[in-house]
């Protein structure tokens, strides 16, 4: 069994009297993709922020194995629009101890981009590719991926997944993959975590989650409380 690369125990977080995370525990292990799904506002992004070290929990404890680098890649992250791709690379290379320029160039050219293009001139699919390149070139060993294919067209999403899987096979990082795309979760995650109203309501191996009667999607939906269909 692989040891935990990153784990959180008993995490509580409250914002302005709202209990966003309630006794959440999670463990990420090398070479394992842990899927995370929850409704909007369930606490996913807060949890990710805390795991990334960007925020502190009110109580509870995050443990990161020494010498491991945790980096978050989120849909919401943006870069200065007027920077060229090579300028962005240079910027990150300076601030990171480790930087693999070859990996960056390789991924950028996979997405058919050249390094003189300005970040602001890119389409969303191209932006996703660049962010992936900037992320992977930092050689993280703990990947926190927050809805990275949301909003991408079918081809761009596939390219992102293919690149991720290629480097996952090579690097064997611990991965937290947060997505609303249920088929991605079914295909990519070793285990699935469902978070609802600040609590982890389900944690199981993905193939144990398959139900012959109702299918993966319906199973997932049934885990959420207060499922109101409005029409």
């Amino acid at each position, binding site marked *: 069994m692989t040891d935990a690369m990153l784990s959180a125990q008993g995490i509580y977080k409250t914002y302005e009297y709202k209990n966003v995370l309630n006794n959440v525990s999670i463990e990420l292990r090398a070479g394992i993709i842990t899927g995370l799904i929850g409704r909007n506002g369930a606490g996913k992004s807060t949890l990710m922020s805390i795991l990334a070290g960007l925020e502190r929990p009110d109580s509870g404890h995050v443990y990161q194995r020494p010498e491991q680098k945790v980096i978050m890649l989120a849909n919401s992250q943006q870069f200065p629009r007027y920077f060229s791709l090579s300028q962005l690379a240079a910027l990150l290379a300076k601030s990171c101890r480790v930087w693999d320029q070859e990996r960056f160039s390789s991924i950028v050219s996979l997405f058919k981009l050249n390094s003189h293009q300005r970040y602001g001139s890119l389409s969303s699919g191209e932006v996703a590719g660049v962010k992936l390149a900037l992320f992977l070139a930092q050689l993280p060993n703990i990947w926190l991926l927050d809805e990275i294919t949301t909003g991408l067209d079918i081809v761009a999403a596939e390219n992102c997944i293919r690149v991720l899987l290629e480097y996952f096979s090579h690097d064997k990082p611990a991965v937290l993959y947060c997505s609303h795309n249920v*088929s991605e979760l079914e295909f990519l995650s*070793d285990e699935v975590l469902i978070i609802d109203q600040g609590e982890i309501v389900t944690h199981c191996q993905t193939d144990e989650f*398959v139900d012959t009667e109702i299918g993966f999607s319906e199973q997932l939906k049934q885990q959420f409380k207060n499922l109101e269909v409005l029409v």
Partner: protein
Amino acid sequence: MPLKILLVHNSSETIAEQICKQIELAISRGVLVAGDSMPSVRVLAVELQVNPNTVAKSLQLLVQRGSLVSQKGRGYFVAEVKQRVSNAEQKRLLKQAAEKFVASTRALALTNEELISAIETLLPKEKSDD
């Protein structure tokens, strides 16, 4: 490699089972023949957009079932077709598979001919001297 694996989301089968089944069908259709090397786990994972652990699990399952052989450092290869289980076990497994097939097609109200024809199309062509 003309191996085409099509995976279905939200199915009653796990992804690993689907991969196993499709590789076995490819072998029985002759798309893959004994001695063929399988693509590496990494390549298959990227092509299918599936977790490499799942792909590895499928290939290992196929080794257990006797459809593939694993050569350390060289990868997975399609196994020679040879009887790897006892006659009694062979009969038992065949009966089990047949029962499953009959049970799952009962509700379709098909003729025996149609059912047999469905099986025949999946089987490799056999030489007439058996």
